[in-house]
């Protein structure tokens, strides 16, 4: 039996409030395409970051070529022959392809003077790209290339580094079908060269096409490693999800009430082209669509974060003029942004500060804040939402993703909002916390709120929505009731109906 190139034994990693990796073993052989499969929050990214030196493991061994190694920095990872191609590519847009490939390792004409051998660099870049069968000139600026070609440049860079293990983190998530084919061709080529490949994905169809072996992670644990021929799609889903749909999506039915929000023919400079819809009390309105379809833009436009070029917004039948988020909050809207850290929270401030920020005016008396009442309210909301740890003096930064999301929700409950727009409410939080978020959404419904839920995860959309809108290129291209919606129908509408 051949020795694996990479052996992981008992890798553990904890973050405040979350066990990201729990005793994970993994073997990856040279010349193998090893798919790492798991839902968001299963621990895939953490594992990768430990391999690339971005995080340090808390416990466990990393063994390369039979020798235990320490990977303390990204540089050490590169020296060990580990290259990673991240979702957000790490290229410098305004430099040429050749400059990017040899960044920091430029071939020198006169090493003492640091003068770069331009010709050599160009030639070697061209050779690498040719080897990959990629028709890109080394002189072109990276910003002028499409995403697929940029990925090729990253792969060429990995080759130039003599990488023996290439990690690809969801490389196909933003590629067209043709680009994906091209990528797969190149990945197989790397395999032929005897390079080990870790391919992170949650697209099951791709796995069938490319995987030699699949390792499934769930909630930070390794669930199974299966070789080609040993797995079928159904089985993988079961392993990945690990619980029944009903447990995962605790959907409740509430009687639909009055129309809470009506949007008529909204146009914006951010790409919305005549969007109209209504949302009702007691209803979860799911909004599906591909990245860039205009879902977040729609939420931002309604909430006054971006200006409207044209169109009207009605709340409980009253036309409202929303010019800024302040107006939206006054009208009873709440917007839970997709990125908690950059748009939802003031990370350096306390939980209490964050919870009371949007509704702070209610604590004003004679022009001054009633601090006692402010903290009592914050404490009460934190308790209601089971924020852990229950310490409202703690900085928001120190909470786990799920608890941060609860703090954001508490902030909006504090404003007494009636219409909640959730943008990717469960992104980056673990499975248990997701269920808690869904239960909170249920509570909102029972209290007569209207909920609009934007999500890129179709199971979540299908599992939690009463009604589903599908967007594509700034327009609404489909509307389905819960009973009639399927993944296929939604995907068809999301790709513009072709």
């Amino acid at each position, binding site marked *: 039996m051949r020795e694996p190139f990479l052996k992981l034994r008992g890798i553990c990693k904890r973050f405040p409030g979350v066990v990201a990796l729990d005793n994970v073993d993994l073997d990856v052989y040279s010349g193998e395409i090893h798919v790492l499969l798991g839902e968001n929050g299963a621990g895939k990214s953490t594992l990768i970051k430990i391999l690339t030196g971005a995080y340090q493991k808390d416990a466990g061994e990393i063994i390369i070529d039979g020798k235990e190694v320490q990977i303390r920095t990204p540089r050490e990872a590169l020296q060990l022959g580990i290259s990673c191609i991240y979702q957000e590519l790490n290229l410098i847009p305004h430099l040429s392809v050749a400059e990017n490939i040899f960044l920091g390792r430029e071939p020198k004409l006169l090493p003492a003077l640091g003068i770069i051998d331009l010709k050599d660099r160009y030639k070697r870049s061209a050779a690498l790209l040719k080897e990959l069968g990629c028709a890109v000139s080394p002189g072109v600026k990276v910003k002028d290339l499409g995403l697929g070609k940029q990925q090729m440049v990253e792969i060429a860079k990995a080759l130039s580094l003599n990488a023996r293990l290439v990690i690809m983190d969801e490389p196909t998530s933003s590629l067209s079908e043709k680009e994906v084919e091209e990528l797969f061709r190149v990945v197989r080529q790397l395999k032929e060269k005897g390079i080990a490949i870790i391919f992170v994905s949650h697209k099951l169809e791709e796995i069938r096409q490319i995987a030699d072996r699949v390792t499934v992670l769930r909630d930070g644990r390794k669930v199974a490693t299966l070789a080609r021929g040993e797995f079928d799609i159904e089985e993988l889903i079961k392993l990945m999800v690990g619980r029944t749909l009903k447990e995962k999506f605790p959907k409740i039915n509430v009687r639909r009430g009055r129309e809470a929000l009506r949007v008529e023919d909204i146009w914006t400079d951010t790409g919305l082209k005549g969007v109209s819809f209504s949302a009702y009390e007691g209803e979860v309105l799911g909004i599906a669509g591909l990245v860039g379809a205009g879902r977040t833009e729609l939420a931002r436009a309604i909430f006054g974060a971006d200006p409207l070029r044209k169109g009207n917004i009605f709340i409980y039948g009253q036309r409202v003029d929303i010019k800024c*988020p302040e107006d939206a909050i006054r009208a009873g809207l709440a917007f839970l942004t997709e990125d908690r850290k950059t748009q939802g929270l003031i990370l350096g401030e306390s939980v209490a500060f964050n919870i009371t*920020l949007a509704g702070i005016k209610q604590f004003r008396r004679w022009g001054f804040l009633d601090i006692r009442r402010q903290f009592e309210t914050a404490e009460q909301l934190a308790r209601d939402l089971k924020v852990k740890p229950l310490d409202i003096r703690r900085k928001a930064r120190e909470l786990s993703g799920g608890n941060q999301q609860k703090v954001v929700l508490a*902030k909006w409950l504090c404003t007494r909002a009636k219409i909640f727009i959730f943008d990717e409410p469960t992104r980056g939080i673990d499975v248990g916390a997701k269920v808690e978020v869904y239960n909170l959404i249920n509570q909102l419904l029972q209290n007569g709120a209207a909920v609009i839920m934007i999500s890129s995860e179709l199971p979540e959309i299908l599992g939690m929505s009463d009604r589903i809108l599908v967007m594509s290129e700034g327009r609404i291209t489909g509307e389905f009731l819960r009973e009639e919606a399927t993944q296929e129908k939604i995907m068809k509408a999301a790709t513009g109906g072709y």
Partner: protein
Amino acid sequence: MLKTVSEKAVKEPDIQAEGKINWKDLLYSLGALLGLILLSAVLTVLSPDFLTLNNLMNIARQSAINSLISVGMLLTILTAGIDLSVGSVLALSTVVMAILIIKLHVSPFIGVLAGLCLGAFLGFMNGILLTKLHLPHPFISTLGTMNIARGLALIVTGATPISGFPFSVQFLGAAFWGPIPVSFMLVLVVFIIFHLFLTRTTTGRYIYAVGGNPEAARLSGVPVERVLVIVYTLSGFMAAVAGLVLIGRVNAAYPLAGLGYELDAIAAVIIGGASFFGGVGTVWGTLVGALIMAVLRNGLNLLGVSADLQTVAIGAVIIGAVYIDVLRQRAINKGRR
């Protein structure tokens, strides 16, 4: 990574009033104060003249102008901004007071009021340049107004000082109440007001929110642009107030007054534990920062150290104070992991 530089000050003393005392935070807020006490102790040993009522009151008086400017500067730094124009705003508003009161014989009250309003107006313009013209950073907008205000001060005075204020105008800067300089009492009153403003009003809390994360603040309904305009207006206003104290001390207004004051104010705010990246800092930290600078200058004077060498020392203190903060922050992060 950069964000970690400074997180010491107690942002919400009111939380602590709520029962449990957060000792860690308390210790951080005391960091600069401990430095001040240590510095004073050393100077007491080295110079018999240091710990005398007379000298302490001297320090109080000498620190007043910088303190007043610093509290305005603190607001801008809390929003992750900066106000380079304060020294020039001080100069322009004082020479305008001088021209109105001394040359044009306007009533002192109206003249002073006009000068203060001018300071506030210049600050307001800084805010407008930043929020409406969308200049990329207040460093640039206030660098512009710094030059404009300085130039105007030179033009309107013909580059010569104007002296001969009535005592009523000099009162704040020159008068004493018993042994205590009125200017220092003004500082205490102003700082208490700003403390209440920052901790007990919505606008004050918004300032921290804007500095901590402007996008999240905006999406939480914080009128970010209005907050910024208020902050720069107050900074300009405080520069003019400091100018009024300067008038009292030297009984003159001169167009080159306040040169480099912006840098002293920035130093006081930073020594006092505020983060240059916004969202962190307190008025009391800033007061301690201003006092540290004044004590250092005073002590070195007493010890006969040359003015040039004093400047070197101040520079070293700024670097040292922030470096200690970096170390402490690193220790916290390690402890957390």
